[in-house]
């Protein structure tokens, strides 16, 4: 019965035995049902066309920012569920809530999703939503490329999440060290999913880096010299330049591992004199700048939030910008601190240990400057400000333990222990996540036109932050008790039990905080509190001079910038009428036309990636041809534009009360 055999074979390929666990089947069914429900809803309400024209083919940076934000929140949920599964397993010794294999898959996806598919898109969400508005531009430099970046990210995320139900998840940790990640130890497609999903998303990330670098350097409004751009824009600029040079080594590391696994090369295998440590080296050449890619935008957000809610200009603008530059520069030269134990010799370790420590100086300058910004100000405890206020005491602990890790012989004891886990959650949550949530609450009115309820936001904040401290402080001490990371479970009698229990309870408190936040968003959407002023926080920078949300062309009239906090200056000097237009000065505006090419291109990458994952080479070639076709089509179609005529602009602006009488 060849047909039967083939079907069985195909089924086994798609669903290896370990995947047929009841929970995964349940989730698969849930996903399918969700997709069908959404499909039916869209058909019933005739929203398909709307979805296609307004969102899927859009090249508008504001909409792309919203799509990034939604994706990031969903991924925060996904990674958060993983985290809660991890913590549930570790709640007590000898727990068998999950098997070891499943535990390995869960922490791997947790780390990968959180770093690449939650934190990165969250950062890009804020960049997209605000940077052009802050520099007085009508869009980014390459709007279509921007859409391509988003769709590459989206399909990368789909790939990684697919692994879970089709073929098996990766399980070698978020950095996937060979030789464990090689075929010898890791047969099956899980690892291929990891490699290719990051590769696809990574290409999009590099494109975003190029895009924002060029946007910020070349698209600023007249008068806005580099010494006048808001510090958040500086952070976007510097983050972009970090992306440019950090991601290519990752591309290489992932690519070579893929060549090993799919095409039989011998880079990092044990046999044929492969050298796995070179992967580790390349990975961290990327990995260390990556953590600053994650945290610098948060620094940028705080540099906007603190002045606004202290009613004072940022203390030491030059020092703030200089320290960002210094951190990014030093950040390229510290990567060996992730593998002091490889025996590279004392000189190497000392060099990289000291270069790591040096980063404390510029970071310290920033911490103190935020405090000095508040000094002599008038602090308003809004939700964005609360997140900032929690950031300072939290991040300083994480940074301080980072310095302890950088003290080389100390690291021989902390490496791969829960001390390390505590360190990096302390900086990532305390820095990146607090920062991104602060930015989300801050710019939400600008992105959506309505505000988030403050009281609920405060509760979400309080639960999340207290849960955070409860989760991660005990982990430092678990490290001193010799508990290493990635343990599927642990025996009793080592003294680890109580601290792990605390930690798990804390994680669920964080989960509750997240749920309140989701409720906060849904509630606020239901009872919309429209922001009619466009300037709900009494802001300082140009985006608050626009209505919320900004019209598709952002600025009907490009501002002539004179000072640093331009909008604040306008308000102080009574120049706010400058943003208005008059019937005589209005011009038609050219905007880039929507395009289906970005999603097609990303889809071709997706198809090619699946081909490589399953070693179905015909499919990989098909995907490659698709990529070429999409690029060729894009090349001939050129940048087409639509003209928004002057009358329409005038009408829109008049409705917003922004036309001079």
């Amino acid at each position, binding site marked *: 019965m060849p047909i039967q055999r083939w079907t069985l074979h195909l089924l086994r390929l798609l669903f290896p035995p370990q995947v047929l666990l009841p929970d995964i089947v349940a989730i698969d069914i849930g996903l399918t049902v969700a997709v069908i429900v959404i499909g039916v809803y869209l058909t019933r309400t005739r929203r398909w066309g709307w979805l296609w024209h307004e969102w899927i083919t859009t090249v508008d940076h504001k909409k792309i920012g919203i799509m990034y934000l939604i994706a990031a929140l969903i991924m925060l949920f996904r990674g958060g569920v993983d985290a809660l599964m991890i913590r549930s397993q570790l709640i007590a010794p000898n727990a068998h809530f999950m098997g070891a294999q499943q535990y390995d898959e869960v922490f791997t996806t947790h780390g990968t999703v959180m770093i690449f598919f939650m934190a990165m898109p969250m950062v890009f969400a804020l960049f997209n939503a605000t940077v052009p508005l802050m520099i007085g531009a009508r869009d980014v430099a390459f709007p279509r490329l921007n859409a391509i970046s988003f769709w590459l990210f989206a399909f990368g995320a789909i790939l990684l999440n697919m692994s879970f139900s089709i073929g098996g998840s990766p399980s070698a940790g978020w950095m996937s060290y060979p030789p464990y990640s090689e075929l010898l130890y890791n047969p099956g497609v899980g690892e291929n999913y990891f490699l290719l999903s990051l590769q696809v998303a990574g290409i999009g990330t590099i494109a975003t880096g190029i895009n924002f670098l060029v946007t910020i350097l070349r*698209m600023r409004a007249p008068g806005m010299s580099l010494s006048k751009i808001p510090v958040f824009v500086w952070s976007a600029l510097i983050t972009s330049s970090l992306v440019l040079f950090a991601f290519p080594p990752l591309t290489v590391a992932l690519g070579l591992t893929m060549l090993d696994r799919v095409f039989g090369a011998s880079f990092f295998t044990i046999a044929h004199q492969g050298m796995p440590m070179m992967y580790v080296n390349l990975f961290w050449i990327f990995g260390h700048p990556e953590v600053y890619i994650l945290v610098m935008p948060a620094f940028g957000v705080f540099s906007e939030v603190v002045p606004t809610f202290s009613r004072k200009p940022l203390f030491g603008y030059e020092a703030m910008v200089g320290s960002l530059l210094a951190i990014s520069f030093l950040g390229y030269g510290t990567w060996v601190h992730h593998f002091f134990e490889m025996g590279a*010799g*004392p000189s190497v370790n000392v060099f990289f240990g000291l270069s790591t420590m040096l980063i404390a100086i510029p970071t310290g300058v920033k911490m103190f400057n935020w405090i000095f910004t508040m000094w002599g100000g008038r602090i308003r405890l809004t939700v964005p400000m609360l997140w900032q206020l929690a950031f300072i005491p939290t991040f300083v602990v994480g940074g301080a333990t980072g310095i302890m890790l950088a003290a080389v012989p100390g690291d021989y004891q902390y490496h791969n222990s829960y001390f390390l886990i505590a360190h990096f959650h302390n900086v990532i949550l305390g820095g990146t996540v607090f920062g991104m949530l602060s930015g989300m609450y801050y710019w939400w009115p600008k992105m959506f036109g309505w505000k988030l309820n403050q009281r609920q936001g405060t509760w979400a904040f309080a639960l999340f932050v207290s849960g955070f401290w409860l989760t991660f402080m005990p982990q430092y001490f678990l490290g001193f008790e010799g508990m290493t990371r990635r343990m599927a479970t642990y025996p009793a009698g080592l003294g680890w039990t109580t601290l792990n229990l605390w930690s798990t309870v804390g994680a669920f408190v964080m989960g509750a905080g997240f749920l309140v936040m989701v409720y906060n968003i849904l509630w606020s959407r239901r009872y919309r509190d429209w922001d009619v002023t466009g300037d709900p926080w009494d802001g300082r920078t140009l985006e608050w001079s626009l209505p919320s949300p900004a019209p598709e062309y*952002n600025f009907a009239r490009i501002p002539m910038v004179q000072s640093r906090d331009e909008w604040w200056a306008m308000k102080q000097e009574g120049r706010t009428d400058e943003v208005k237009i008059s019937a005589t000065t209005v011009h038609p505006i050219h905007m880039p036309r929507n395009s289906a090419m970005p999603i097609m291109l990303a889809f071709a990458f997706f198809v090619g990636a699946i081909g490589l994952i399953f070693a179905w080479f015909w499919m990989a070639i098909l995907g490659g041809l698709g990529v070429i076709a999409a690029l060729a089509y894009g090349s001939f179609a050129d940048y087409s534009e639509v003209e928004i005529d002057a009358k329409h602009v005038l009408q829109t602006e008049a409705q917003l009360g922004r036309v001079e009488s």
Partner: protein
Amino acid sequence: MDHEHPRRPQAPTGHGDEVELALLQPKMHATQFPSLQITGYILALVLTLLAFGMVAYHWVPVPSLIPIILVLAFIQGALQMGIFMHLREGRGTTWHLPVLALALFVGLGIVGFSIWIMMFKSGVS
């Protein structure tokens, strides 16, 4: 940084105001004969063959050979950048120059540090 705006002929305001096609008047700065390109080509050939000769015909002793041909490669790279890649052309501030310098720095750093790290010089740790 503050001086760049006066130099910029018109404000970069998104997609709105492109120069009319008719205004475009390409002008050659050079003479009507591509002498610069020819010079570059000849220089490239000379440098390549020089390096090749050094290796193939043992013109220099082995220990200094590799550093010398590396230096030749860098000289040739710089020449090609200067002559063929129109390195200094640009509009307003030529931002690609600092980015390029940074990339070179990072790229060389990756190579140099990787070699150093992968020598495994530990005695006992």
